[in-house]
């Protein structure tokens, strides 16, 4: 469902739904017998409500107080640009592939002792499905680790299973995420490794990649 359609439906609901309690109140409440309510002056005008209107105003204020307050949301934006290097004349040309890019927030730091606590944006679809991202941990001299944060486990990933507190939106890894040194076990030699046989899929040209 598109955002425009959702917005239209919300506006329609705001316009139509209050008619139901208003109809009930005006049909069954005697206009003269209900108490009156007088509001504060606004721009010199005082509002005085009587009968069903006063009751409706009270209901409206109560609902306003109890309204859902979770309004934070996010959208995906495309960020484009160019990075340029300014160097001394005798310096070797910079390698653009040495650039490490991060998005802040969130600030993802690891505490002394290896602990961490990170605030991570998680996508929720219109129908309430949560799409957890993956966690990628790299350290020089260690094998990189990809940790899926979603509950659907399959082979391939590390065997660390998180615990979920959906009410407080918290994911906890009870057991440590182990990063293994490249010195542990047999070293990798690409020249002596198994050649992967390409399946008949053409290699995309550089121009096609966005």
């Amino acid at each position, binding site marked *: 469902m598109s955002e425009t359609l959702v917005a239209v439906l919300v506006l329609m609901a705001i316009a139509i739904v209050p008619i139901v309690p208003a109809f009930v109140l005006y049909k069954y409440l005697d206009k003269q017998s209900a108490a009156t309510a007088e509001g504060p002056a606004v721009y010199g005008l005082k509002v005085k409500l009587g009968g069903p209107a006063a009751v409706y105003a009270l209901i409206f204020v109560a609902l306003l107080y109890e309204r859902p307050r979770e309004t934070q949301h996010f959208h995906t934006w495309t960020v484009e640009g160019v990075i340029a290097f300014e160097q001394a004349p005798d310096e070797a040309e910079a390698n653009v592939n040495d650039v490490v890019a991060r998005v802040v927030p969130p600030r993802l730091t690891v505490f002394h002792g290896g602990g961490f606590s990170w605030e991570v944006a998680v996508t929720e679809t219109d129908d309430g499905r949560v799409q957890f991202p993956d966690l990628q941990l790299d350290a020089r001299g260690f*094998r990189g680790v990809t940790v899926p944060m979603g509950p659907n486990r*399959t*082979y*391939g990933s590390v065997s660390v299973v998180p615990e979920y507190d959906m009410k407080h939106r918290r994911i906890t890894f009870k057991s440590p995420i182990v990063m293994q040194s490249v010195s542990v076990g047999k070293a990798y030699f*690409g020249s002596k490794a198994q050649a*992967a046989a390409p399946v008949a899929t053409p*290699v*995309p040209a550089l121009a096609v990649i966005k």
Partner: protein
Amino acid sequence: MTRRDFVAKVLMVSALSATLRAQQTIVRGRLFRRGPRGEYPATGIGVRLTHPRYGPSSLSYTDSYRGMYYLSAPPGEYTLEIWLSKDQVMRFTIRALPQEFTDIAPIQVP
């Protein structure tokens, strides 16, 4: 389904899971790009395995230093998928061996 059939199915699934866990190998390899100054690691690219029976594995992203990926899997024939983007995938056939590591030769990506 009778109670005996249900118990048999549960035992079979448990046995299969135990077998998968017991015979895992770590499939590892390296992705690289070639530029005017030579090769450099292709980092942050998603790689996964697919098997006709086990289905797709989780994604492993090539690391920041050497462009290495690591995926644990039971021995067998797999399709290695390199996800350059959500629309561009490179596919290779590999054999995961019954040993600690199955090393795959470096693959050049665009």
